[in-house]
């Protein structure tokens, strides 16, 4: 059993005391280190003293309880000497709290503990006990855990117990409190997996009662249950039932239910196979693209990428693409953004000619979209269209768009655009990174905003790892080293930050040939900040690279240890000492 080291800087008894501190931050801190306490006092005392004491903590604020359940989930099984069932009462109590995330985590931990018990009979006894107690509790929230646990142990208990559990679920599904019905609906998908252990009639009855429920969030989750049911023999036996229920959900009055259905279209398609999808659900997707509600259009547009693999290319051309023309000019930016992220997935499916005729116009329109987010989303998927049409034909339209984004007023947009570069490098290769594009990168390196320069430096490192040092040196690095002579010292710093970032990719000859002279010259810079950073860079290079790099670095540091600036002197000296 691992002994946990005390890195808190506090004595253990103080940590224990602070479990009951008036200051919530101290309580959270102590709860975070429960494993340390347990490890120090040993498994027997943990079992007999700490775990019972935790009962006193259960009435605390949600923040503390969230920390508590996480803390107990980590390695407490070991810390109680492997005696898993000792933890169960605590987790059971945590299933009754108000915060949903704590209840769910606690229920999942009970599940985990039960799997670690070797004795099957014990598992049955304990789990049924927990489920019944939670079900009978005054607190209706406790039924959340019941809905989670029943599917987890259903196939491990006796026939009699299974009948009891079925009855509990039946009652919960008709409870007058909507949240209880919601719990039942949310986790019904897990119970359905046990078909035929849970029989057909039962599944149908429950789903029929849910579909009539007036609450949107109860009908919504039927989608998940049907998907899971379709992965079992239930689909063959009750195909009409399943398909009809899916259709009812697709036509639901409430857009939220239709939204959820649309969100799961790809999974539904996989469950009912391509033919099933085309026959039954394809039209719904097309209808959603024309829905009045922008949220619906958005989710339908987002799903194009995945459902396109289920559709017949002819249908894509004749039925889907005509609808996209109105979406590309939709007034709502989220809708256009969703389209931008998935429309290019159609290119490989419909072939070069069709892409050129049908998708290219849409692509070009989105490229000029007034919303920069839309343009960036499009860029991230650029490789899908360049693979089909080739880079050259597109570079004429793409490069100007990229240039425009690179000079956007909003620095966050500029930073996002830089990240797009490594997508291109990976997907398309060095030929995309023509002079124009490299010029953009250099402009970014000299941007006014520090964040943008940082991102550009990071991208340079990425590019080197993708395209190699030789390529980078020839095309990029020499120009960056030229920054040494810029008047504004912030840009001279960029040289040093770049070296820091790409250290791991440099080889020692390169360092000696190119980097050392740079550092030697910058060590004489008039600005102290620069000289200070030279120290940092030198020590980093010396430590990471070692070998014949160390001596030149030492020499540089020695010159700097006689510097006029106190800070620089101190840094150089301590650097030398550490070598």
């Amino acid at each position: 059993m691992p002994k946990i080291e005390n890195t808190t800087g506090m004595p253990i008894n103080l940590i224990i005391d602070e479990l009951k501190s008036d200051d919530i931050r101290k309580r959270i801190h102590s709860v975070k280190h429960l494993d340390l306490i347990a490890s120090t006092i040993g498994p027997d005392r943990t079992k007999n003293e700490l775990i019972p004491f935790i009962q006193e903590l259960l009435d605390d604020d949600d923040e503390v309880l969230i920390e508590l359940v996480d803390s107990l989930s980590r390695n407490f099984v070991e810390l109680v000497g492997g005696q898993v069932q000792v933890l169960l009462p605590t987790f059971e109590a945590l299933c009754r709290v108000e915060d949903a995330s704590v209840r769910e985590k606690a229920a999942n931990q009970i599940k985990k503990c039960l799997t670690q018990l070797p004795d099957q009979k014990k598992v049955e006894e304990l789990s049924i006990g927990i489920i019944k107690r939670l079900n009978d509790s005054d607190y209706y929230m406790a039924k959340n855990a019941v809905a989670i646990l029943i599917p987890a142990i259903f196939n491990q208990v006796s026939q009699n117990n299974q009948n009891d559990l079925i009855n509990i679920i039946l009652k919960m599904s008709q409870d007058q409190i909507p949240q209880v019905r919601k719990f039942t609906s949310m986790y019904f998908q897990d119970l359905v997996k046990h078909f035929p252990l849970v029989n057909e009639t039962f599944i149908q009855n429950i789903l029929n009662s849910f579909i009539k429920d007036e609450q949107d969030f109860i009908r919504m989750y039927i989608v998940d249950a049907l998907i899971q049911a379709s992965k079992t023999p239930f689909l063959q036996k009750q195909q009409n039932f399943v398909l009809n229920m899916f259709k009812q959900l697709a036509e639901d009055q409430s857009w939220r239910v239709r939204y959820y259905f649309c969100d799961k279209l790809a999974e539904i398609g996989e469950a009912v196979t391509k033919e099933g999808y085309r026959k039954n659900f394809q039209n719904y997707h097309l209808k959603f693209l024309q829905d009045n509600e922008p949220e619906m259009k958005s989710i339908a547009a987002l799903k194009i990428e995945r459902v396109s693999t289920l559709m017949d290319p002819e249908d894509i051309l004749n039925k889907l693409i005509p609808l996209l023309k109105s979406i590309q000019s939709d007034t709502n930016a989220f809708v256009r953004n969703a389209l931008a992220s998935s429309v290019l997935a159609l290119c490989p499916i419909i072939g070069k000619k069709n892409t050129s005729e049908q998708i290219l116009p849409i692509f070009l329109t989105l490229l000029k979209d007034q919303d920069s987010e839309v343009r960036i989303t499009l860029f991230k998927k650029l490789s899908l269209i360049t693979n089909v049409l080739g880079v050259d034909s597109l570079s004429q339209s793409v490069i100007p768009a990229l240039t425009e984004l690179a000079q956007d007023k909003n620095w966050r947009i500029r930073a996002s655009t830089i990240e797009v570069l490594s997508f291109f490098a990976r997907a398309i290769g060095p030929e995309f990174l023509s002079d124009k594009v490299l010029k953009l990168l250099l402009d970014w390196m000299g941007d006014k905003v520090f964040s943008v320069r940082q991102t550009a430096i990071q991208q340079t490192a990425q590019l080197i790892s993708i395209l190699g040092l030789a390529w980078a040196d020839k095309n990029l690095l020499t120009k960056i080293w030229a920054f040494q002579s810029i008047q504004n010292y912030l840009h001279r710093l960029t040289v040093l930050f770049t070296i820091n970032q790409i250290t791991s990719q440099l080889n020692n000859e390169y360092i000696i040939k190119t980097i050392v002279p740079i550092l030697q010259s910058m060590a004489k810079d008039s600005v102290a900040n620069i000289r200070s950073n030279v120290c940092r860079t030198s020590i980093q290079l010396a430590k990471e690279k070692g070998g014949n790099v160390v001596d030149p670095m030492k020499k540089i540091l020695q010159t700097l240890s006689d510097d006029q600036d106190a800070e620089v002197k101190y840094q150089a000296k301590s650097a030398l000492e550490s070598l």
Partner: protein
Amino acid sequence: MKKQDWKFMQVFGDKASSDNVSDEDIISAVQFERTGRFLGLGDRAGRLIVFEVPQTKKKDKAEYQYLTELQSHTREFDFLKSTDIEEKINQLQWLRGQGKNMYILTTNDKTVKLWKISEKNVTKVIKPSGKDLAMPKLQVVESGLIPSVRKVFPNLHNYHINSLTASNNEEFVLTSDDLKVYLWSIEQPSKAFVAVDLKPENLDELSEVITSSTFHPTLDNQFLYTTSKGIIKLCDMRKSGICDNTAITMSEPEDPAKKNFFTEIVTSISDACFSRNGKYIFSRDFLTVKVWDIAMTNKPVATVQVFEPLKSKLCDLYENECIFDKFSIASTLDSNSFITGNFNSTFHVVDRMGECNSQYELNFNKKTIVRQIPPKYFENLGSSYDFNRKVQKLSMCQTQNLVAVACLNCLYFYTA
């Protein structure tokens, strides 16, 4: 329709305290808990006071007793706008209790809080853990109903929050300020959903603000909001995300002949509610109550003058600023009448056809003083008519014909 006779049942407060009432004790929010067993009260000092009907074996209507109180909100300073944020409780909303625990949402102008009142033991450490690393020994120092804040939602709204309601299934909470209506869930306060946005591109063009909002009593997808222009909008969450686009509008166009200086001010709706059966909407503006049938939204089925003599006093009311006072309205259980407050310690019970207007006068003598107000009523409101004794807040119990009426710092119960 059977006329309901309301009778005095109980009062908290007396003449002495009422004559010298300090501003902070004025009740600013009242609400019954869903089963009627508890009643919550908020005041200008930011306190929440809870009353209960103790469980007794007696079958007759037991009286309410003080149960507990807590300090919900305190005065804060808004650094961004350099103004004070008052601690006055604007609205309360009870949530479903669990076991013996009570849950109440309270709000002032800016911050919504979820309070839990539960029976528990507060413990104190009497012997800390020592060298032997024993667990601290605890002792119970206080036992009983202890309140605790479960959640605080501080930054929901930019403008003053005027309403707070929870849907029947308690999945959503609806809050509105001057320009927006938000739908959010207690579990995920970081994701508030804008249901209605009245903000114009240019704030100088602002002409209409939201004055109140409320959920439908049973249908969790419907809610209404009201504006300062006397417009009611009925929204259905199922139809669309931004609910305003598909909302049903109910408003009566202004009669240009009757327009005067005060028209704009008095048409602002101060409060509106659904009837208990959800078929009607009662909306209260300064002088009238309009009854709308949801099935017929082109005009109201009835417009009731609450107390006509006030019409002749509009100039005075403008001077003493009482013309801006907001009055609440509630529907009776059978949906056939509504109850709303007025000045001079009075409240009115009127049937929804507007035929029978009964004015009840609140008093400390445990008497029910009622008189009928016929249509086209006139009375000279002399100096004894007290505009300071406003009955602004009231709440109808959902399980029996019992209404709680607040006037300044006193709380009255009437039953029918």
